[in-house]
């Protein structure tokens, strides 16, 4: 049985000058899922999203949005929160939300009614009549997000939605994303903060240097790295190093090492027999952050950030 895709792209390429900002990206986002696009700054996430939405045209490659190769033709079924937030400061919050709905084909009256309902549901009921210029940055960001869902889109695309939000608003946003998925919408969002992706994503892609380096579920991503063990001896001394696996590194009062393929039991028996004892032992699943650092590489992260800085200059 084939999976129905909300977004698919093959071989997307975008050059700015001589630089290939996006270099052959393939993405397949199944319908009804929360899909994360992860990557360091300047990895090409925003450019990829803009190409998927048809805001800019790719230099090479094909993409379909909700089954349509012309993304513009389905724009009424899409909600979008750009990385650079923008609202008209002189508009009232409900007007701004209704306006964003009207751009996507929702009539103004319904837009205003839904805007009030959405604001109340998001805990912003007290600000329904306020002008945008009077809101805090976080609140304005939430209002813009509500504007991107007011027309109840089939696909919601969020570019770095958590940046600039305090923890309370981050939690509100997470709830809203989950609610949208529960409503049946597909959510595609980019981030470089792993914690959100880990909590929310059904599937994800890790992009670096304009290329997709990994695609799969969070569990698939974690499976690319072995489990780690953290062992704290009861009677430590210098001779213990010889009994531990080769990749062991000291950490605090103990040692950290990769869980051996044959299991940890043999190592523990040797340590106990030698009289080191066990004061503490934990087996740790690799985090998405570990996977991200391993896949992207500290060097690539540094290179991406340098390239971004060069681009800005």
């Amino acid at each position: 049985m084939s999976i129905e895709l909300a977004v698919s792209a093959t071989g997307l390429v975008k050059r700015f000058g001589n630089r290939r900002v996006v270099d052959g990206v393939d993405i397949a986002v199944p319908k009804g899922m929360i899909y994360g696009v992860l990557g360091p700054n300047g990895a090409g996430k925003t450019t990829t999203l803009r190409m998927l939405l048809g805001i800019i045209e790719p230099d090479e490659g094909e993409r379909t949005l909700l089954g349509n190769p012309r993304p513009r033709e389905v724009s009424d079924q899409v909600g979008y929160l750009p990385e650079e937030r923008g609202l008209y400061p002189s508009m009232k919050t409900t007007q701004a939300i209704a306006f964003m709905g009207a751009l996507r084909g929702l009539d103004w009256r319904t837009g205003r009614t839904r805007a009030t309902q959405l604001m109340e549901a998001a805990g912003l009921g007290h600000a329904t009549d306020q002008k945008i210029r009077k809101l805090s940055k976080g609140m304005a960001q939430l209002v813009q997000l509500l504007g991107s869902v007011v027309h109840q889109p089939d696909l919601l695309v969020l570019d770095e939605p958590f940046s600039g939000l305090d923890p309370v608003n981050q939690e509100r946003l997470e709830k809203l994303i989950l609610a949208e998925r529960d409503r049946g919408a597909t959510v595609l969002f980019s981030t470089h903060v792993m914690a959100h992706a880990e909590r929310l994503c059904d599937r994800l892609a890790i992009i670096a240097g304009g290329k997709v380096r990994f695609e799969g579920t969070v569990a698939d991503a974690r499976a690319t790295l072995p489990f780690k063990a953290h062992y704290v001896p009861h009677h430590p001394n210098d001779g213990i190093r010889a009994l531990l696996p080769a990749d062991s590194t000291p950490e605090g009062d103990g040692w950290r090492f990769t869980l051996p393929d044959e299991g940890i039991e043999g190592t523990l028996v040797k340590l106990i027999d030698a009289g080191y004892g066990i004061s503490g032992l934990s087996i740790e699943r690799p985090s998405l952050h570990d996977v991200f650092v391993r896949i992207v590489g500290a060097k690539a992260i540094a290179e991406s950030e340098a390239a971004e800085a060069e681009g800005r200059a």
Partner: protein
Amino acid sequence: MSSLARLIRQTMTIARRDFVATVFTPTFLLFLFAPLMMVGFGAVGGGAAMSITKSGDDKARIVVLAGGDQARVAVAADRQLRRMFRPIEQPARLIVERPGVNPEAQARAMFERKESDTYAVMYGPLDKPQILHSKNGTRSADYLAALADQVMRAQRAGTSAPLSEATKIVVTRAGSTAGGHGQAAFFAVTALFMISLLLAGQVVGTMAEERSNKVIEVLAAAVPLESVFFGKLVGMFGVALLFLGFWGTVVVNVGSLLPAKLATAFIDVGPAVGLPMFGLLFVAYFVTSYMLLGAVFLGLGAQASTQRELQMMSLPITIFQVAMWGMASATALEPDSWLATAAAAFPFSSPFAMVARAANAPELWPHAVALIWQALWVAITVTIAARLFRRGVLQSGSPRLRLRKKAAA
């Protein structure tokens, strides 16, 4: 929903936002009353007054129907009398014509001639002359009466009593005068210029708001940039219509509000095609001039990424507009010159020149040709400007351009 219906709906959403954002602000009142300030400055007013006066003076005349010695004496007396007036107060040029069988009918017919503006005509014996004059020709009639008296005095030297008793009759013209057409042309060109100057100033900076608030990305994702482009044009066009409606109502009713003496000064001002047709043509030319200039300015304005760049752009844009106005207002004074033809043919001055022509000449077919010509240029300009706009806003070429590049490769 069809693509066109969708495009129109998206365009109207942008237009509505822009219209509301422009009109429902206190600063819109400043914008609305800006023409008053401009008039107040007097620079335009002074120039206009001089041009209007010149336009009328060229064709203004007073006439004496006389023959033989009487004509010769009248011309000599006119030469003497004129010396008593300062240059600015000089009466209209004196023309002497031989009287026909029916001098009264001959005199009345002179007021209806289109090639000249006759203010007063004197006929009959000079001791009891008949003087016909237009409503705003009272001064001319007084002058002719003084002229008759001067001639009689020259013939009967040595008396100080009035020797001539003139009978003055006011003549009502069937239409406006040739000078009045020129004046109407100048008013129309100036009005069109002022409206387009004010509105183009608004249009050129209209993208600045979206850029500074970063709303452009939201718009670009939701609707085609062509909708943003047309929405902004249409939104400002709505503002323009409001502006035009307000000032049109003021101008139409201003006659009834003016003091009688002042109103008389405008009595001969009128367009050659007639007022209702002129109104229609004015609106049509306003639409084309707005679309032509507005599209170019919107496209250029989208290239500016900072307020400073926008300000730098405003100067050449204003100079361009003033040049168009200068060219068209010159044609208002000389409707048959080569400059008038050139101004009518050049797309960006064509609406100005043709509105002047509507005031100066009664033929309608040139307007049909001009409107088709201008509509063609509106289509060309809007297409190019929309592409410029897209590239300026997104720094990204259109798909069509990319295909061409590929084909070339």
